[in-house]
C-alpha cells in the first residue's frame, strides 16, 4: 500500500509507492509481460494466445483500493505497434475502452479523479516497450486539474473553450483539425513540441461525447502521433494525458475533455530537461517559439498522412 504525504511548502501531495522499485524494467522482447501468452511459452500478464485490447490491475500500483486504482491498458497484442500505427478501428475502440474505464473507476467512492495517460519512450521513463497506457484513479483531486478548474474561475467560464477560441482566431499554432477537434501547440507551451488536442464542443469527459466524436478523437490522436514520429524520423517520446472532469467532490463534472502531449525532445537528439528555473522557480525557459515548432510539426503531420 502506498503512503500519501503532503509537501506543505508546495501545497501538493507526494505518493510513496516503494514496492514499485521492483517493477519489471526493460525486459527483452521475448520476456515482454504485455505480449499474449503463446502456447508452450511463459505466461504473461495476459494468459491468452491473442487479444484485442486488455486492461488489468497494475502489479505495482501507485494507488489501489480502498485508496484509488492503477490499471494498465494494453492497446494491442502486437509488440511493435504504437498509438499511431494501430488500425483506425482499434484506435477508435481504445477511445471506448477509455470511456468505459473512466465511467467505472469514476463511480467508485475511493476515486475522485481518473487520469488516462501514456508514457512513450525511455526518455520519459518507460519500462515496457509494448504499446500500452495507464489509468490512475486518484483518491483526491491532484494539483493540475485543480489548477485547470481555477483557470475556469479566473477566466470567467470554461478556460479550454476560451483558449480554443483564441487559438482559432490566431491560427498560427494549429497543427491539425477535423470536425470534432483542433490540435495546436499552445500560445504558452511549456515543452517545445507540446500539443493540445481540444474537443470543439464543450464535453466534460468522454462520457458526453457522441460516437462520431470518439472516432474523430482517435483519428486526431493518431495523426498527431504519426506526425511526431515523422518530425525527426524517429520514434518520438512523449507523455500523453487525457484531461477530464473530476468524478467526485465539489468539482465533479466540471472540465473540458482534451488531451495534452508533453514531448521532451527539442531536437532529434537533444532533450529539454527540467532544470533550475523549471524546478526551482516553476518557470519554463524554452529554446523554441510555439509558432515555429507548430509550423514544423504541422508539416510533419501532413507528410505522415
Amino acid at each position: 500500500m502506498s503512503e500519501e504525504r503532503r509537501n506543505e511548502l508546495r501545497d501538493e501531495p507526494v505518493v510513496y509507492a516503494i514496492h514499485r522499485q521492483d517493477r519489471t524494467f526493460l525486459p527483452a522482447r521475448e520476456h515482454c509481460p504485455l505480449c499474449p501468452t503463446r502456447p508452450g511459452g511463459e505466461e504473461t500478464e495476459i494468459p491468452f494466445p491473442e487479444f484485442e485490447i486488455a486492461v488489468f490491475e497494475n502489479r505495482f500500483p501507485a494507488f489501489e483500493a480502498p485508496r484509488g486504482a492503477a490499471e494498465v491498458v494494453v492497446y494491442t497484442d502486437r509488440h511493435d505497434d504504437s498509438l499511431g500505427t494501430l488500425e483506425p478501428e482499434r484506435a477508435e475502440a481504445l477511445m471506448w475502452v477509455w470511456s468505459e474505464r473512466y465511467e467505472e473507476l469514476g463511480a467508485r467512492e475511493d476515486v475522485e479523479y481518473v487520469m488516462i495517460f501514456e508514457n512513450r519512450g525511455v526518455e520519459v521513463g518507460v519500462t515496457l516497450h509494448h504499446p500500452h497506457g495507464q489509468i490512475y484513479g486518484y483518491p483526491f483531486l491532484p494539483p493540475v486539474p485543480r489548477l485547470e478548474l481555477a483557470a475556469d474561475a479566473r477566466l470567467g467560464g470554461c478556460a479550454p473553450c476560451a483558449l480554443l477560441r483564441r487559438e482559432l482566431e490566431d491560427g498560427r499554432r494549429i497543427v491539425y483539425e477535423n470536425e470534432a477537434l483542433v490540435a495546436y501547440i499552445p500560445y504558452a507551451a511549456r515543452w517545445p513540441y507540446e500539443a493540445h488536442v481540444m474537443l470543439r464542443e464543450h464535453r466534460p469527459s468522454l462520457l458526453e461525447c457522441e460516437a462520431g466524436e470518439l472516432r474523430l478523437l482517435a483519428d486526431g490522436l493518431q495523426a498527431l502521433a504519426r506526425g511526431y514520429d515523422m518530425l525527426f524520423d524517429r520514434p518520438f517520446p512523449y507523455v500523453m494525458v487525457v484531461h477530464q472532469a473530476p468524478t467526485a467532490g465539489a468539482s465533479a463534472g466540471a472540465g473540458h475533455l482534451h488531451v495534452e502531449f508533453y514531448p521532451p525532445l527539442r531536437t532529434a537528439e537533444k532533450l529539454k530537461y527540467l532544470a533550475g528555473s523549471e524546478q526551482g522557480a516553476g518557470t519554463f525557459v524554452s529554446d523554441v517559439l510555439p509558432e515555429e515548432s507548430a509550423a514544423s510539426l504541422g508539416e510533419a503531420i501532413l507528410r505522415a498522412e
Partner: protein
Amino acid sequence: MAFPDEGSPVSARSEIDQAEREGADGPSGGRGAADDARGEREETYGPLGFRRYVKGDGRALILYTHGEPTDGGPVDEGPAHE
C-alpha cells in the same frame, strides 16, 4: 456539431448489463464473480464487447473486443484464472 445516426455513449452499457450492475456489490467483485472469473458472460459497452477475469493473484483482467468477438479461450485454461 451533430453526428447523424450516432448516439451518445452516455448510456453505452447494455440494459442487461445495467440490470446486473444494479445487483452488484462493486465494480470488480460480487457481480456473479464465479462466472466473471472465467469470463463466461460477455458485457457490452457501446460497440465493445468485454469479459472480466480474475488472475491467479486476485488482480482483475478485462479483455475487450470490437466488432466480431474472437474466441476468448485462455491458454490451457490459464493457470492465472480462478
